[in-house]
């Protein structure tokens, strides 16, 4: 076996091990979801699971290289609106939390000489669950690990092109996600700093072939368009660092979000990187409706801290 073949073989083996690990973690998450509520709270105390909601506006920079459109980088301003929702899970609220994200994003990008523009419009949705551990190392640190599924789609549009006017994007994936939150007080104001990383490990995504026009796809040639997404064909990651400042019942959020999307199939490379400043407002809400008896003791289990 040549050195090159050996290296390739080792790389494949490493990637296989990584995938097996990812699938194992996800399977564990799924099996724990299916377990009966062994840790249900004491029957005599009602459990309230407030919904933590945040509306965020983000602005920052984006860099796009999509060789279906052009081999050069386009950079510019990126804006995003995002809604995030978290809630402790009913079956084991102390340990398991649900998280949902939905966002829409627009990037206005220019080439280096500044004479051509690309427009990027993307929408995405992510839903996941995390197992959390509180009081890790210190009473103020919480760590959570879990899995999520996400769908992201949209297009990069380059008006100056001809038959390769648009590069359509759609990607479904299952991901690993991990989050660490640390809480303390600043001048009596509770502040929670959190970092969350989300790493898709497997999925399916769309890519036209190297010189294929959308006209040919329109005519019905759909071969070679759907691809298995794994670390041998694409790499995506989202990093979010947030500071939540509790001001009464309202939480002011400021932070930073970084997203990375790279794919390399059909001899086409795509690289989209964003760096965003985040500002948002939110809070935790408890439903008071329904037939909840007055005066009953309730235990509130927050999804966040």
């Amino acid at each position, binding site marked *: 076996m040549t050195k090159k073949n050996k290296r390739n073989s080792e790389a494949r083996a490493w990637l296989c091990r990584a995938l097996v690990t990812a699938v194992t973690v996800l399977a564990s998450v799924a099996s724990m979801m299916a377990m009966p509520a062994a840790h249900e709270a004491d029957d005599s105390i009602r459990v309230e699971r407030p919904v933590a909601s945040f509306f965020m506006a983000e602005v920052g920079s984006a860099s796009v290289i999509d060789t279906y459109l052009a*081999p050069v980088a386009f950079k510019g301003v990126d804006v995003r609106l995002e809604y995030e929702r978290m809630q402790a899970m009913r079956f084991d609220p102390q340990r398991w939390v649900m998280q949902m994200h939905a966002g829409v994003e627009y990037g206005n990008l220019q080439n280096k000489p500044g004479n051509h523009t690309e427009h990027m419009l993307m929408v995405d949705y992510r839903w996941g669950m995390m197992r959390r551990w509180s009081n890790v190392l210190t009473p103020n640190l919480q760590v959570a690990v879990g899995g999520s599924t996400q769908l992201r789609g949209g297009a990069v549009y380059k008006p100056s092109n001809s038959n390769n006017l648009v590069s359509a994007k759609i990607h479904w994936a299952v991901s690993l996600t991990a989050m660490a939150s640390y809480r303390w007080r600043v001048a009596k104001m509770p502040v929670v700093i959190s970092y969350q990383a989300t790493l898709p490990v497997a999925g399916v995504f769309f890519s036209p072939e190297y010189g*294929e026009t959308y006209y040919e796809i329109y005519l019905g040639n759909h071969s070679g368009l759907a691809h298995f997404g794994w670390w041998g064909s694409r790499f995506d990651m989202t990093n979010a660092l947030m500071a939540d400042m509790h001001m009464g019942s309202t939480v002011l959020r400021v932070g930073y979000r970084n997203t990375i999307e790279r794919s390399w199939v059909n001899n086409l490379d795509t690289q989209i990187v964003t760096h965003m400043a985040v500002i948002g407002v939110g809070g935790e809400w408890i439903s008071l409706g329904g037939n909840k008896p007055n005066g009953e003791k309730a235990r509130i289990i927050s999804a966040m801290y």
Partner: protein
Amino acid sequence: MAMLAVLGMVSNSCMDEEPYSYDVYGNFDALWKIIDEHYCFFEYKNVDWTKVGQEYRAKLHSGMGSTELFDVCADMLKELEDGHTNLVSGWDVSRYWIWEQYPVNYDERLIDQWYLAFNYKTTCNVKYQVLSNNYGYMYYGDFSAGIGEGNLDAIMSVLASCDGLVIDVRSNGGGLLTNVEPLVGRFITERLYAGSISHKTGPGHNEFSKPYDYYIEPTSSKRVKYSKPVVVLTNRGSFSATNNFVSIMKSLPQVRVVGDVTGGGCGLPFSSELPNGWTVRYSASAIADSEGRLTEFGVEPDFKVDMDQNDMINGKDTILEKAFEVLDDMVAKK
């Protein structure tokens, strides 16, 4: 967690840099490479692109200005003899337009004045009218202008009673292939094999997909169709999507093509960009006709006719007059 954070930082820092420099050589090399990896007719046209690149790169020097560089690049692209290949800068568009080398063979004013008497209907960039010899005439000058099925119904309703129809696509430089289908659909009664498309699958000169056969469906039976003899008029300016339209129409038994060879352009163009912002357009995906032939250099007419200057002075369109003769003959034989 720490590993994920490190992975994120590493991934951010590993993003590929743009592979070209911004100087004269960087831009030239970028152009050469884009064409080398994406152009679809090297073998068909027997072009040695490596040799071409070496020849023109030798003309560069580091103190060269942008206009000089543009001219060298433009000359290099002309070696491809491709009407779909252009280099676009802020001050010029390089081109290889075959029709500039041949007689125009079309005079719009002559038709409007002497055959239509300025009395024609027009919709969606189509002029149409019933002529005094009871042949229908329609001029479609731009396949970028979409025609709706309702518009075609209106046109065909007016022309339905004619003994024959002339479709004039001279100097129609092309447009959208999706506008070809509804027009062809008016002249067929069953699904028509129109040809095949093959695209590049990688940077190698011979990396192509398996040809994908495509078909055109006849227009719905509720729509107005035309089944009598048809003559399509062409010149060298009948290019790109128009060339495709002519090659498909020519395959129909009730259709004859009269005029000059079409301008060709059977490659679907892609665009790309150089580091300095110039845009380059090139043929990236080839369409073959229903007999598997590439019509990059044009479709031969059934009757090759050029405009006669004396006819034009006398208010006659030589090509249209020949079309009437052909229609007379086809009607008589029917």
